[in-house]
């Protein structure tokens, strides 16, 4: 059974973790982190913006994700694992945000929640994804983004989100079918306008 923590189902090693007591040095030096940040930040931010639908919130959560990542003990493996671990932290922070009183639950956020002022939407407005994504639930957006934009397997998504792999398979199947239908409708509408 997984141990609950303040940020979600998974225990995230934090500043109070054992790793911190070994040394005051961060798990990465400044240059290594700068390289990792440049490679991973755009993808992470895109994920947070698409799922939360709130650019300001996404920026806050992204910063906090990197801070926690740096303060935690270095996960085993190379950059692939670092990146997955970073997504896990970000996902837990998102979940933590939705669990707070006053914030909507991840399952209950209305489909129109995606902010209209999102800068990303103006960039790929010509694409059909945005309107279709706006009609999906955050959980569906989360799974679709991780699976199809990031290319994570069911097992990896399970590690990131804390959901069971079998549950992800079913949820993803439904979400994919739903968004494919919406995308086709959007394409047909765009063609009709043209």
């Amino acid at each position, binding site marked *: 059974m997984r141990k609950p923590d303040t940020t979600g189902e998974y225990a995230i090693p934090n500043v109070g973790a054992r790793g911190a007591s070994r040394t005051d040095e961060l798990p990465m030096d400044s240059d290594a982190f700068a390289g990792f940040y440049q490679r991973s930040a*755009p993808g992470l931010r895109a994920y947070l*913006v698409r799922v939360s639908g709130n650019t300001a919130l996404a920026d806050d959560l992204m910063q906090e994700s990197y*801070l926690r990542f*740096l303060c935690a003990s270095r996960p085993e493996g190379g950059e692939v694992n670092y990146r997955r671990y970073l997504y896990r932290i970000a996902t837990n922070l998102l979940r933590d945000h939705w669990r707070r009183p006053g914030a909507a639950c991840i399952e209950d956020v209305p489909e129109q929640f995606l902010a209209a002022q999102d800068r990303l939407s103006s*960039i790929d407005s010509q*694409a059909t994804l945005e309107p279709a994504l706006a009609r999906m639930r955050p959980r569906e957006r989360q799974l679709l983004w991780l699976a199809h934009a990031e290319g994570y397997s069911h097992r990896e998504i399970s590690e990131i989100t804390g959901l069971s792999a079998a549950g992800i398979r079913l949820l993803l199947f439904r979400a994919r079918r739903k968004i494919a239908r919406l*995308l086709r409708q959007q394409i047909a509408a765009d063609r009709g306008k043209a």
Partner: protein
Amino acid sequence: MMTFRTCSYEKELHQALKDGHWPEGCGQELRSHVDGCVKCSDLVLVTQTFQRARTESERATPCGSPSLLWWRAQLRRRNAAAERVSRPITIAQTFAWVVTVLVGVVFVASQYSHGLRWASWGSEFVPPRAFHLLRFGSGQVGWNFLLLISSFAVLALLSALVVYLAAEKS
């Protein structure tokens, strides 16, 4: 009711999409299958759309300063380490204060129940009398009083030390 079935081509198609081999790098058989399979055409449509969105997002995202984040993380880590180190000391200090106050309260209460003799205490602490108290054969009341205070002080110190060591170990 939605039926959940798998397609035998799904894994191959998924890998081709992930590696960017679709459609040019795929055989005619797979391409023909995708044309006729709703599930696989859904997979192609959704994956390509999301991959395109991710590429656009990556181009658009302004990156913050990693050095600032790194510095903030270092600061946070050091603050946490300092807090962790000072926690046992704070606990021990608090405990020592509580014990001292309790001893004082108990002592005052016991004295109060036997009648206040503040004047006699004061007279015991004047230098000639105090000097006199330290000698053997001095007044029994003064000896008991000093012994009591010393015992409680040693007890408080030892308790604080035990709590400090226990807290540090944990």
